[in-house]
């Protein structure tokens, strides 16, 4: 059984060893150590124990470790891009969906471009007489004059009827 004084001293031996004890305690502990054999023994054991640990050698990591770190970071950055792709809805990844969607888009674009290049597809279907007049009489007329002539013609023929 150690007395209270020895107990208080021993609690500070570790800090004394590390030079982390305040000056007043440092003096007290040193005075006590000079007179107490049991605490001296404790002090010696502590020094020995610390010395044993500190003799463990410094090790050198493998020379390829940096490449591992670099590769991990690059893979993580790549998979971040992958995450963005994965956030799209599931059906987006199906090839059939992509084919059908692409086909539809092409069809719509083709229709619009064809309309622009080949004339007004949306025009009302011509009657037989319109086609005849278009082919034989109005080829050199402006569309406005053509429509006026046809209107007059159709009105008159309906009166005759």
């Amino acid at each position, binding site marked *: 059984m150690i007395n209270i004084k020895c107990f208080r001293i021993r*609690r*500070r*031996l*570790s*800090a004394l060893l*590390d030079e*982390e004890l305040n000056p007043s305690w440092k003096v007290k502990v040193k005075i006590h150590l000079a007179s107490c054999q049991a605490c001296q023994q404790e002090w010696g*054991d*502590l020094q*020995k*124990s*610390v010395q*044993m*640990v*500190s*003799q*463990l*050698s*410094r*090790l*050198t*990591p*493998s020379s390829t*470790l*940096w490449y*591992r*770190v*670099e590769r*991990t*970071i690059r893979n*993580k950055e790549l998979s971040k891009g992958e995450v963005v792709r994965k956030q799209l809805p599931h059906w987006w990844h199906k090839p059939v969906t992509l084919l059908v969607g692409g086909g539809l888009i092409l069809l719509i674009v083709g229709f619009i471009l064809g309309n622009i290049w080949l004339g007004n597809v949306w025009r009302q279907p011509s009657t037989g007489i319109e086609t005849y007049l278009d082919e034989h009489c109005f080829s050199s007329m402006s569309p406005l004059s053509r429509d006026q002539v046809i209107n007059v013609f159709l009105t008159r023929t309906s009166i005759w009827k």
Partner: protein
Amino acid sequence: MVATDGELIQRCREKDLSALGELFHRYQEKIYNLAYRIMGSREDAEDLVQDVFVKVYESAEQYQEKASFSTWLYRVAVNLSIDRLRKKKRERLDPLENPDTEEDVSLIDALPADDPSPEELAIAREKKERIQSVLEEVDSRYRTIIILRDLEALSYSEIAAILGCSIGTVRSRLHRGRRLLKEKFKKLGEW
């Protein structure tokens, strides 16, 4: 001119991998030794060093200039080591696997001029392995402090900053840890 740690970490924030490379070459050995002494195996220590530097790169914004970079780095390393130890404990893996030839290289470096015999080499290596395994038997709270103080030679205030505790706590844990260690060494007849 050599870039400071602060400048390099700033470049890491801008996702400059070469800056991380410089920091890595400055600190890899310290972190590796700390990790090895806590984890007890070379493989785990290398994995941990890798995790630490990946974390530094990804969390560079979190570093505040109040503490020194090395303190922050040690903190990251200690936290990741403790997480890994807990995980290992949960998975019930044996932490003392293959002590292989871990001490060999440094042991050869530390040899005196007159070459020791193979027997002396083997004895020295065994002794170091025993010291390491005794160290690993001590609770990780105490072990970490012992390593930071007795192997990394950090001051109490640096250790307190790394572990996020008071200097008083460092002092008392170090005292308790060393006492535990001393008892274990005595039990094993190491002196």
